[in-house]
């Protein structure tokens, strides 16, 4: 179970095969995978490897991908409009 990072993806991105493909491509530590039904799958075991690079935030509309720190000030990272 992830101790440090959580990721949320809005349904608009999670169910768009093209955007899912982009998410899989940009993440350097393989947090995203394409699910069997074409949707996105969060790879739980890789969540704590997140480097906070924010590349995933630029996939889709602002706020559609959110990276949460589970420690400290628990700041949420998301693309602003």
């Amino acid at each position: 179970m992830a101790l440090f990072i959580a990721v949320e993806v809005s349904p608009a991105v999670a169910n768009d095969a093209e955007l899912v493909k982009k998410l899989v491509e940009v993440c350097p530590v393989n947090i995203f995978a394409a699910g069997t039904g074409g949707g996105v799958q969060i790879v739980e075991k890789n969540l704590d490897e997140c480097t906070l690079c924010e590349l995933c935030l630029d996939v889709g509309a602002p706020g559609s991908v959110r990276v949460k720190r589970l420690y400290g000030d628990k700041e949420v990272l998301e693309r602003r409009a």
Partner: protein
Amino acid sequence: MRFYEYESKRLFGKHGVPLPTGSKVAHTPQEASAIAAEIAGPVVLKSQVLTGGRMKAGGVLFSDNPAAAAAAAKKILALTINGHTPRGVLVEARAPIAQEYYVGVTWDGVARLPVMICSDMGGIDIEEVAETHPQHIAKRNFSTLLPFSDFMAKELIASLNISGSDLNRLAQITAGLARIFITYGLTLAEINPLAKLADGRFVCLDGHVDMEDDARDSQKAILKELGIDPEEKRQARPPTDFEIKGVAVDAGDHRGVAGNVVEFDGDLGLVIGAGGGSLTLFDAIRKHGGRPANYCEIGGNPSVTKTCELTKLILSKPGVKKIAVMMNVVSNTRVDIVARGVIKGVIESGHKPSEKIAIFRIPGSWETEGFKILKHYGVEYCDRTVSMYEAAGRAVAKMRVG
């Protein structure tokens, strides 16, 4: 990487250093007998192990005929010395010795150059000669770019008041040794003793070669020629199960280094790194009276998983009460990623990070983020205003408190 004596001698012999007659390795008593028969005279048989103390342990025997050589080889091959089983038995002619010398080349860390050392008192530790008879030692640094000439060798040897044909013969061997040192990326090339026989010839009675590990790739050809497997690891002792597991952790993920483990018998696990910083930290722990359970390197930005697995390994060692995570200031390793890995490892081992981590002292990249994580889990941490020595002291003090 240390060479066996027979390998060192093959290397020396290839470059004209005179060896005793025979000088072949036997793997069975029958082979030893055959080599002794070829030599047709008194022989010495020496266990081929990568450890010292052979003579005292009975790993060096003498015999006068092939049958006695076979019996001696049988004894030596069955003998384990300091945990090392022999690779074979080196069989050489035994000739009357008139005088013993020492010649060696190694690195001078202060001058940052190779240094050639000669002495007319061979056969004993050169360190002992340096302490008790410094006037019998001559030293000279030399360039890695310019060849160590016969003339330079002559100057050096002449400073020991050696002259005549002895000077010429010794100079040739000495200059040759310097060239071998440079050519093959060695960290030590030593002949001790270099014997002058009663008939005036010089022969290398014992040799010691260490090759820089990083030179192994560029020296594949000579290693192959000497019969050294490129994958062969040469260590002072066989790795423990714990150390083998450390290597497996490192091999399990290509990112960074986490798992270069050497095991000791203390109670403080060390996750340390940053080049010379890890050695400094290890020494600082000892200086403060701490007892390291291991020397365990980390660096080059290992993944969270890799650091986590390493931490779990360290905590699995019986007797480890706490771990200290310490590095010099780092730019190539993210502090927050290491903090995550260590904390995860501690938690997955069933412990509280605040209790198991004695100190976390890694200043550098992403340290603010790392410190947030450590604070969240109640781990004592410090930044670069606390020296490595002081951090080590804090870790040791915490071990005393419990």
